[in-house]
């Protein structure tokens, strides 16, 4: 057909055994029956048109009706080859006898059987558009394209590694998102309907655009690897130029429906910004320039884009969902840049790049992008803690030295308020263990533990959501909701450090009662050990929350789930032993409504949760069940906050449950991002929940309030007399301004704190004893104004200072007219009164003074008795007695120590044994595996 064929060198594979069978068929045997093809060669600058036409001439396919060159070519065309000004014209002028158009770039060198393979496979698969496998000319069969997927932003994802050689590993005909316009075979009628390629686009983008329109018009787009074309790649920087990028953006602007564009365009902008910044970090400015140029170009060509959309509208047969089927999740651009950054970091430690290779897979997971975002949010949310440590205010107090904390945990003296033999909150045991593990540096241990909580919360939610079957970006982002959701924000906002810890541990504990869907190698011993381990720590941080894993397992079963283990949930209840003594001694913590913090979640929360969960409840079964589980937990928690039952322990658990449930809802709602209306509404609800949650994280302290009560009350230590710092009586009409739990006084709240500085064991006040009642009487008398010498009245309680915090209280007016509390301007915003009459905390005959020593008291030995101004208890040694309400001990030993009694005093030991047993079970279970 072509007389002046110009031959050029092909690879050895031109005659290889891998060539498709069709290529071996006689050239004209069936040409009369074969569909007629019109070849349209588009000119590429610098490409040898003659060579291209020669390869067309050598095609073994016999039904080529016509060869057309688009544009003004230099020199004369071979006979039989015509010229047309535009591609659109060439397509429009094609007669009905032609069934297919083969669009070929002039820098393409197809194998002789390339066209016949294309026609054969397109016919066989009833496709509308087929693309050839592109190999880079001049290489040893380096793959350029085998048809590509894209992400939602139109960025191509070939799945090919750089320099990957064709070993026929991809030689299977398959549907793809798009094929390159370098060599594509398209049905003539469809091409005419679609008016061909967009001449404003570069080849890859044009291919993408055309492929998308073909698909939306109802056609099938396939890659035909048996049609091999060598490509000189003169037509662009292999899709990397800014025009290509602009063309891809134009392609999605033309193809997507408006509702899809509403979220794709903003996200696309964000991706552009992140990619630009990340590349700038890598000292590359071009990507930023390309992004900018691309957006500007599209802005400039927006009218023509709109016109193209209008032209395409009548042809569109199906929705965007068909495009989504062939798209990779997340952003290809971000994945690549993230992978590169990780590679560079890992290359410092990873000479052989083994890890770096793994990161490519890692970044291809959409969940990892959620994790990265959540990680950034955690870093931003905790930045102040990195530099300034954890605030000491609200319910967030410093740790005690590990030995002292352990002493208190194992039935030692509870020093909160005026002291008590009642058990301390079991979190004291955890904090002493953490301090011990951090080399006894309790301040650093607290900072590390707090940041670890944030990390654990995010990873824990991600892992839990993963075990529940989620893979989307929401599973790690949901950790932010756990950290700062409806209940956690309120608790942590009031300074509850323990609630932060409990929130972080909850997903891990719940996860431990869910069995892995496929991994059956883990033994029951390991499962039981893990459940016990997590549940012990969780229950120690928030005793009532220890019931949640079982509750979740049961609810999951009720909702029709199968992988939760109620037995493991029951095992988790054994961990209750860690809190048994505390709950038994302070039942009011569990039951007394008056002791609640009074936190109230905003009414936006149930609305946002319902908006996110309701659409999920109407979609496919797996997500539906998980979404409803989250909603039941979240809304159940919010309801429990409004039911007048239970004390602060119940309130804490209900609030954390609300956050946990909301986090699951978010993970479910963001698991599969698509424009499907129910998923879209659910995602919007989830975004609202995330936004509401993120608000409380922006303070840089993970939502903890700012302040350092110990620093403010430092004067109590600095100005202490010989007997050392005594106590500070803190008073406020606003309970939230007082550290830890406080007691109700006449018209205000009050509590005593250790003048040496508050520690975590003082967060909760033990049940009132005779000393507390005496102090209450004294406070009431002072508040009545009847006492002219309130300092003398407070002296027996070792109260060195009275601090009235915050807004004016009636007490301030009353203390104006008294004789022995000395107003001292030591604090701004608070009134401080010194009490020169205060007695030392521990004093004896002949001026003998003791100070705190560990969890007890100690000093020089002497004759007689020491008066220690704590509630009297028989557990003290040596020779405990009482004087009025306070303790006396013999001064002979030079120290006084306390050991609790009662059968529950062994509970902490049992908890410690369980902890060790849990570790042993895990170890044994793994060894057997």
């Amino acid at each position: 057909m072509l007389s002046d064929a110009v031959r050029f060198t092909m690879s050895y594979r031109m005659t290889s055994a891998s060539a498709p069978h069709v290529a071996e068929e006689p050239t004209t045997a069936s040409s009369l029956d074969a569909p007629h093809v019109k070849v349209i060669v588009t000119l590429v600058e610098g490409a040898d048109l003659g060579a291209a036409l020669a390869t067309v001439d050598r095609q073994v396919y016999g039904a080529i009706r016509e060869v057309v060159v688009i544009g003004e070519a230099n020199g004369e065309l071979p006979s039989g080859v015509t010229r047309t000004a535009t591609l659109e014209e060439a397509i429009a002028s094609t007669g009905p006898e032609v069934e297919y158009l083969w669009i070929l770039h002039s820098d393409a060198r197809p194998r002789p059987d390339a066209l016949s393979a294309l026609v054969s496979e397109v016919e066989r698969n009833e496709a509308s558009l087929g693309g050839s496998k592109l190999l880079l000319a001049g290489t040893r069969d380096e793959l350029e394209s085998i048809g590509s997927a894209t992400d939602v932003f139109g960025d191509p994802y070939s799945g090919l590694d750089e320099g990957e050689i064709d070993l026929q590993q991809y030689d299977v005909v398959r549907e793809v998102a798009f094929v390159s316009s370098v060599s594509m075979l398209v049905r003539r009628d469809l091409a005419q309907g679609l008016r061909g390629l967009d001449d404003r686009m570069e080849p890859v983008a044009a291919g993408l655009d055309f492929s998308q329109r073909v698909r939306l018009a109802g056609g099938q787009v396939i890659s035909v690897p048996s049609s091999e074309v060598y490509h000189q790649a003169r037509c662009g920087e292999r899709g990397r130029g800014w025009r290509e990028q602009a063309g891809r953006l134009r392609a999605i602007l033309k193809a997507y429906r408006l509702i899809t564009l509403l979220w794709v365009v903003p996200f696309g902008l964000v991706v552009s910004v992140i990619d630009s910044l990340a590349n700038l970090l890598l000292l590359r400015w071009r990507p930023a320039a390309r992004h900018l140029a691309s957006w500007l170009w599209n802005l400039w060509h927006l009218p023509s884009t709109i016109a193209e959309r209008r032209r395409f509208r009548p042809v569109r047969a199906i929705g965007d969902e068909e495009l989504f089927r062939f798209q990779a999740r997340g952003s290809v651009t971000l994945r690549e840049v993230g992978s590169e950054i990780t590679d560079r970091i890992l290359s410092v430690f990873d000479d052989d790049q083994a890890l770096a290779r793994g990161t490519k897979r890692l970044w291809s997971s959409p969940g990892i992008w959620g994790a990265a975002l959540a990680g950034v949010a955690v870093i931003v949310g905790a930045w102040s803690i990195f530099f300034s440590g954890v605030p000491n205010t609200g319910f967030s107090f410093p740790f005690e030295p590990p030995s002292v904390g352990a002493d208190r945990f194992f039935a030692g003296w509870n020093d909160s308020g005026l002291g008590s033999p009642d058990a301390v909150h079991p979190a004291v045991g955890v904090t002493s263990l953490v301090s011990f593990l951090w080399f006894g540096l309790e301040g650093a241990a607290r900072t590390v533990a707090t940041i670890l909580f944030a990390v654990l919360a995010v990873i824990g939610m991600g892992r839990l959501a993963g075990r529940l079957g989620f893979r989307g970006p929401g599973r790690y982002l949901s950790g932010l909701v756990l950290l700062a959701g409806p209940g956690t924000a309120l608790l942590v906002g009031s300074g509850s450090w323990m609630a932060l810890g409990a929130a972080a541990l909850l997903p891990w504990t719940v996860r431990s009662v869910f069995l892995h869907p496929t991994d059956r190698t883990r033994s029951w011993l390991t499962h039981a050990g893990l459940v016990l381990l997590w549940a012990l720590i969780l229950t120690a941080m928030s005793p009532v929350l220890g019931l949640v894993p079982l509750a979740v397992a049961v609810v999951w079963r009720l909702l029709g789930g199968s992988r939760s283990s109620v037995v493991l949930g029951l095992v988790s209840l054994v961990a209750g032993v860690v809190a048994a003594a505390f709950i038994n001694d302070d039942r009011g913590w569990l039951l007394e409504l008056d002791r609640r913090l009074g936190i109230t979640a905003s009414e936006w929360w149930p609305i946002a949760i319902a908006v996110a969960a309701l659409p999920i409840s109407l979609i496919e079964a797996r997500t539906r069940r998980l979404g409803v589980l989250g909603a039941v937990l979240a809304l159940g928690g919010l309801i429990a906050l409004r039911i007048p039952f239970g004390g602060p322990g119940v309130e804490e658990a209900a609030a954390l449950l609300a956050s946990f449930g909301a986090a699951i809802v978010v993970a479910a709602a963001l698991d599969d991002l698509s424009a499907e209306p129910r998923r879209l509404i659910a995602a919007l609800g989830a975004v609202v929940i995330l936004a509401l949650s993120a608000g409380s994280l922006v303070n840089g302290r993970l939502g903890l309030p700012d302040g350092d009560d110990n620093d403010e009350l430092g004067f109590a230590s600095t100005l202490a007399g010989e007997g050392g710092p005594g106590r500070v009586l803190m008073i406020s009409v606003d309970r939230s301004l007082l550290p830890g739990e406080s007691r109700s006084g006449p018209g205000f709240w009050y509590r005593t704190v250790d003048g040496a500085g508050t520690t975590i064991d003082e967060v909760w006040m033990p049940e009132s004893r005779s000393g507390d009642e005496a102090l209450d009487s004294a406070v009431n008398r002072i508040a009545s104004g009847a006492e002219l010498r309130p300092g003398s009245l407070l002296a027996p309680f070792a109260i060195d200072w009275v601090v009235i915090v915050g807004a004016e209280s009636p007490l301030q007016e009353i203390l104006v007219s008294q004789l022995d509390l000395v107003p001292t301007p030591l604090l701004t915003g608070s009134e401080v009164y010194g009490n020169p009459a205060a007695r030392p905390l521990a004093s004896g005959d002949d001026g003998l003074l003791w100070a705190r020593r560990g969890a007890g008291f100690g000093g020089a030995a002497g004759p007689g008795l020491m008066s220690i101004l704590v509630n009297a208890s028989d557990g003290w040694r040596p020779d405990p007695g009482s004087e009025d309400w306070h303790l006396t001990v013999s001064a002979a030993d030079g120290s006084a120590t306390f050991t609790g009694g009662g059968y529950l005093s062994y509970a902490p030991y049992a908890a410690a044994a369980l902890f060790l047993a849990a570790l042993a079970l895990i170890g044994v279970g793994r060894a057997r595996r």
Partner: protein
Amino acid sequence: MTKALFAVIVVALAVAALMLPVLPAPEPAPGAAVDLPAVAVCPVEEGGGRATTIAVASTQSGTGRVSAFVGGAMAGSVPFETGSGAITVPASDLAAVGVVTGLVELPGPEAAAASLMVGTDSVGHESCVRSAEPLTLLSGGDTTGDREFEIHLMNPYSGEATVDLTVRSESGIESASQLRGIAVPSRSSVIVDMDEVLPGRESLAVAIDVTSGSVTAAGRLLSSGGIAIWNAVSPGQDWFLPIPSGGVDRVYISTGVGDDVEYQLDLYGPEGLVEAFDQGMVPARGSVAVDVAAAATAEAVAFRVVSTQPVGVFLRHEGEDGLALTSGSTVTASRWLLPGAGMAGGSGRIVVLNAGLEDATATITAYGRETVVKGPPVRAGTVLEFASISDGASAYTVTGEGLLVPMWVTTTGTATSYAGGVPLIDE
């Protein structure tokens, strides 16, 4: 089916979470009823030719303490125990010298104290103030001639106080900077020497505004060796002023409000109540001096002052028999304590107004070496004056069934003092 069930569960829970009432925020226990300690703040001057004695009268037994505070510390303190009767504590026992603040811790609410300053030719007698008020008024003093007018600001408590004085004289509102932001340190007192700050003023209306802390104020006017002490009073709209026989120069009515205040002066004369004996206008933050000499006859009378806004009312007498100043009473009561009455020597008189509509029997009890009781009837709307009933008494009580207002008058020949009583409010 499952979808619908799940959707119903979600909606039902969301509605419940929205509709359930929010639990009320925990509130502290109700505030305690204020039951201020029974204390009285007394001006004390020791030295300079005068000595102060603190007198305590009580109808209940108990213990108490008299303390003197100066320079931020307690200069001295004397405990006492009393039954139903009176005790006296000379300031010299407190080791206090100069002008200091005295604080009397009373045995209970049925007790009162008074300061009695006695010099060679002077007697000053005034009840001690039971409760400090944030705003008090003081009028009746002047800085003309050789008169020395001092305002004694007393703060026996442990916190520092700050006071603003708003003074209006015949020149208008005074703007002297010394009158603003006066710091009264804890356990101390401050004397504002008005004759130095504002010399030559005939009329001085002082509003004492305690901006922080607690301060009790008293006026001290010295003239030709005579002395008068009188308390700054909390403003009120109804005042009663018993007037002894022998005349009173002037009644001073002052106000601390920023508007002119209308007042009406009613006279309880021998013929009963004469309404609108005088009426007029008190200028904003100023005072008027009503010349009542014409009404003062050989018999004791009394005035009632009613005003449209709160005012303070003071009584001033100045003559050859000395200088006397006291404040009126805003209350009537059936029981009164007159601590220090009869202690200054000379002749003493009790003037009792029955402001009620029914006749009353006033029982006068003198506490001293022996207790003497006398019960003269007082007709409704009239004033009865009678001489002291016991030599060497250190306090009197007046009890009756009516709405009584008493005053103690001491006359030594060279000095005169007026002292109002302290009401015992019926439960």
